[in-house]
């Protein structure tokens, strides 16, 4: 049996939810749990002042569920190593940032920097995500370094910036500069890529249905059916992702780049013919 935290504050002050991890909370008794200190704006308050606690019989034993006014919860699951967090609503920024294991599910919109610097685990957003999903955090040279980020909606600008490993799946449109400075890894976008995708890319794969404009620093490199992509699409479909049916046996135009870098990256664009 997991725990459910119902946040009742209507105050728009940001709440730093990073201490609220399954690995820290689930072994605590309910009294100690309500005493956990949490930053709200420039104050530090006991968790009990922010939310109501209840047992969640339907959830898994290592699960934390956040409900109510969750939009102001920032850094949810940041640094998470194990267990499962479910947010029944929107989340603020930095959800799942630097997480290295476990599962974070957001049944709403995610703010900026979702999954930034992520190293492992699974982050699913059942809505749109803000800017810089899976990107690097300020001061860090690498973005996502492992794990899986599934966005069942659109993503803002600079998704996967400087990512090194892992998989980002965006079932929608990606904003400008998707995969900018990408080191490696895979970014799949069922819709279109915004301006300047993959700019400064070294290695890795950007896959999409359409380009809004020709990408800078990429050269045409044939049309082919990519078996590795079929592996990814099958894997995603088995996990409930809305993979385009037309992609499964399709050919893709390959653009190799970035010529401004070591030219070992690729952008694959669906060929409807």
């Amino acid at each position, binding site marked *: 049996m997991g725990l459910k935290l119902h946040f009742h504050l209507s105050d728009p002050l940001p709440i730093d939810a990073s201490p609220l991890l399954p690995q820290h909370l689930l072994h605590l008794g309910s009294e100690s749990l309500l005493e956990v200190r949490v930053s709200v704006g420039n104050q530090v308050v006991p968790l009990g002042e922010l939310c109501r606690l209840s047992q969640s019989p339907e959830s898994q034993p290592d699960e934390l569920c956040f409900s109510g006014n969750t939009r102001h919860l920032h850094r949810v699951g940041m640094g998470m190593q194990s267990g499962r967090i479910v947010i029944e609503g929107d989340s603020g920024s930095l959800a799942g940032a630097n997480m290295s294991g476990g599962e974070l599910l957001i049944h709403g919109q995610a703010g900026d920097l979702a999954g930034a610097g992520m190293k492992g685990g699974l982050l699913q957003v059942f809505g749109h995500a803000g800017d810089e999903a899976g990107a690097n955090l300020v001061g860090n040279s690498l973005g996502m370094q492992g794990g899986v980020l599934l966005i069942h909606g659109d993503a803002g600008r600079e998704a996967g910036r400087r990512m090194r490993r892992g998989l980002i799946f965006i079932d929608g449109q990606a904003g400008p500069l998707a995969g900018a400075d990408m080191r490696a890894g895979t970014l799949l976008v069922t819709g279109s890529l915004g301006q300047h995708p993959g700019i400064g890319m070294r290695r890795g794969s950007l896959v999409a249905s359409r380009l809004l404009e020709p990408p800078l620093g990429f050269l045409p490199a044939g049309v082919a059916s990519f*078996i590795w992509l079929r*592996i990814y699409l099958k894997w995603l479909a088995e996990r409930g992702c809305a993979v385009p049916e037309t992609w499964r046996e399709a050919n893709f135009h390959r653009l190799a780049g970035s010529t401004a870098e070591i030219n070992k990256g690729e952008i694959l664009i669906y060929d409807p013919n």
Partner: protein
Amino acid sequence: MYLNHVRIEDTFAEAFPMCAARLVVTADCEEWAIIAARAAAGLAHSIVGCNCEADLAGSIAPAQTPDGRPGVAVLLLTTSKEAMQQELLKRIGQGVLPTPTSACYNGLDFTETIAVGGKIRYFGDGYQSSKFLDGRRFWRIPVADGEFVVEESFGVTQGVGGGNLLIQAASQSIALEAAQAAVAAIRNTPNAIAPFPGGVCRSPSKIGSRYKTVIASTNHPFCPTLRAQAESQLEPAVQAVYEIVINGLSESAVRQAMKAAMIAACLPGVIAITAGNYGGKLGPYHLHLHQILTE
């Protein structure tokens, strides 16, 4: 013991542990997947001369393969992990890789692994790249029809080799018909193979020879045409003998395949079914025919 008027000798096949691997070979259509799988399993009939025993181990539906394309399983057995690595590098690198549209994946989920794609990747001459998904690394090697994808590591486990049956019949055609029926039954058994051409061996061998350089030679007591010249283990009515060698991923898989093969081979005109052994001195698995039939 008699089964459908065929005498089943009260003896045993002597089997021994071997290093086993299982490949999943896929392609754009089943025809090309079979061609690639056959190339990987080529000339792998007897450990004595081939260093490897292998055969196709059934079709795999697209839903069950990593890339969603038609697939074929290949089971391989060797004497050691090192030998397996050499065989896989050779067979995947020279057999599967050149075959149009093919890809090759590990088909065993075991903790002990050997690097295969991780070495074959050098064929890419620096243009290779990899994808890492869910704990598995796949190498992409550029080839002239696109890319060859091969998994980095392949699992190995202890398999069982040396299960065998000797089908004795009143004529060569009856013996072959019975042997083919036995092989068809083995191929319907999971995790077991009959590695000889068509699954049938007409040259059962004994250890050693009168020639010092020959480590195995024809098993003359089972050659019908030598009855006048050498000791024979055949009764007068027997005119032909075919051997079926059976390997598998486990002892139970071999036993199950032997049982299916014996039942299928008991056709009219078949006189006896026996098995080869070395007096129990070679292998730890003694597969008693009577016991297997009562399981």
